[in-house]
């Protein structure tokens, strides 16, 4: 549940990680375990990776392709896995199918080749999600974006990546924005949620597109406003600009990434 009456409550999330029991030592055992893995295991090794590297400006490598590249040393297969994961493939079933397709394209003999030492095996983990209502409830789209601006990466991750991955379709946060009469914000949230970018970049783009949209709306309104109203709007814009310029990444009081 993410909405409270008319408002929308932001949720954070904690992932409790534990071994799932699977271990792969070559591409064939990786294939077999992926075929059997739960959605929470696939989630942890692919979709959840951006949260572990929340401040990275680039999308971090998923665990599977990182292991295939770094340990099995099959660069081509690693690249294909990365590509499959980057699209996040909509759902656990789609992702599993995409991953198996990549691994099944490797000739069977090659899948058994280059078995790793036991200490370099891929250990499958699983993530139990514990969603946490933050108590921050936005009553309208503008305060929602302000609250997101202050929110930690796990809040962005939960609403724009995790929730729609487990329940495919538009994110609940975007549906709420649309219901509140802000289809532009809903569109931005939906598009950025689908884009497969890292969290820092996703956050930056959502806020930038939202502010640009607001600016366009203000300019449009200003052409119809009185001189006093235009002066006040200009003052507000300058104050907002100064606030953004003086906000540094090193300030932990603000939401990261």
């Amino acid at each position, binding site marked *: 549940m993410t909405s409270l009456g008319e408002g929308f409550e932001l949720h*954070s999330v*904690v992932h*409790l*990680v*534990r*071994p799932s029991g699977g271990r792969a030592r070559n591409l064939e055992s990786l294939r077999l375990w992926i075929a059997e893995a739960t959605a929470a295991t696939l989630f942890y090794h692919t979709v959840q990776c951006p949260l*572990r*590297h*929340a*401040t*990275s400006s680039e999308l971090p490598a998923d665990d599977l392709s990182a292991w295939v590249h770094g340990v099995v040393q099959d660069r081509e297969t690693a690249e294909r896995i990365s590509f499959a994961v980057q699209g996040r493939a909509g759902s656990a079933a789609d992702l599993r199918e995409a991953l198996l397709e990549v691994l099944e394209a490797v000739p069977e003999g090659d899948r058994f080749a280059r078995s790793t030492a036991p*200490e370099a095996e891929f*250990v499958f*983990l699983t993530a*139990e999600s*514990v969603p*946490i*209502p*933050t*108590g*921050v409830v936005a009553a309208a789209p503008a305060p929602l974006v302000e609250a997101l601006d*202050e*929110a*930690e*990466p*796990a*809040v962005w991750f939960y609403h724009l990546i995790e929730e729609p991955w487990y329940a495919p379709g538009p994110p609940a946060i975007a549906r709420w924005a649309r219901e509140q009469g802000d289809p532009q914000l809903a569109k931005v949230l939906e598009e950025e949620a689908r884009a497969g970018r890292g969290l820092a970049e996703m956050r930056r783009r959502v806020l930038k597109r939202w502010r640009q949209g607001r600016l366009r709306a203000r300019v449009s309104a200003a052409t119809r406003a009185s001189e006093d109203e235009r002066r006040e709007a200009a003052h507000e814009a300058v104050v907002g600009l100064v606030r953004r310029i003086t906000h540094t*990444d090193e300030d*932990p*009081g*603000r*939401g*990261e990434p």
Partner: protein
Amino acid sequence: MTLVAVRDDGPALLDGYRAAVGEGSLRTLAALARRLRGHQVVMVNSTSTGGGVAEILHRLVRLMNELGVATTWEVMPGDTRFYGITKTIHNTLHGWPGTLSDDDREHFHEMNRRAAMSLALDGDLILIHDPQPAGLVVHRRQPGQHWVWRCHIDLSRAQPDVWGFLSPIVSGYDAAVFSHVSFVPPLDLPAYLVPPSIDPLADKNRDLTPEEQEALLAPLDLPVRRPWVTQISRFDRIKDPLGVLDAFILARKREDAHLILAGGSANDDPEGAEVLAEVRERVGKRTDVSLLLLPPDAHLIINALQRRSSVVLQKSLREGFALTVSEALWKRRAVVASAVGGIPLQILHERTGLLVGSVQGCAFQVTRLLRSPDLRKRLGAEGRVHVRHNFLHPREARDYLAIFARLVEAAKG
């Protein structure tokens, strides 16, 4: 007295942590804590002073109370024989040879049985740290309680006989917690992975002014003009001080620098003294290497040494979690470290530091860093952020609270 009184004077921990991790993280922590209002947490370990677990508990217990989760800390009492047995358990779980006699096993249970009668274990969320008090669950578990065993030990090389003794006891818990996936033995209960963490407010990690650093380092008489390459570790073969020296000698042929090997005094450790003697011999008359023997409470000096270093090394051959890496990253240092134990979780290669697998690799990366202040700055900055998100005490507290919340809600169905 078995109840530990945790100091709650001075500024609130939450205020200190807010400055370190940010309001957003604390808001999540507070929201999680609200879900556990009305519950009572009891932490149990075997000592209130000395050792990393006691250090962490002093902070965690206070932090959880500040968050509104009623938390107490009990210390399990024992006799000399019990401590001898638990020392054997500790060492054999780490992989050293040894075993427990039938009498040892009976005495272990007897002491846990007695402690179960004397400790205030009336909370509903019981977090037991390490093997010593693990048997309490057998003798004191009540309906409605959730028991979690937190193992701070690497069990990957545990003696099967000793783990075979502990394993049925651990099966009585609702969940177990380990620091790293490679430490987890086969278990028939959920085994969660919770990495350890450092305290940004502790003397070892708190901010130091340039004047404080100067005052702390001046008595050590270290060269001030050369960049420092530093490894802070006990003189132990698995920390590979000779490998560090070899790597430095190679790097030194290309760049000017000063190596500092700082570790604890080896008086009570015959093997450590032997390693130190070997290192001294290898150093010979070199003037570009300093060996520092530091007392156990030299936290501020270690802090200043790390802050003043251009490159921090952790070139271990084997490691547990190696939180010294997070300590250096928190100070925005460029770190070169081996890809062993928990180090790869802290060092993301080329992002938060540099991983190496050989003496030559270490020499190459040290040289590279000495030549590039920009690279040092970039890695240090990313390392600081990585530690802020993943390896500070508030994150560890958050994980425990999440495990408790999960257990409570699962019991409710």
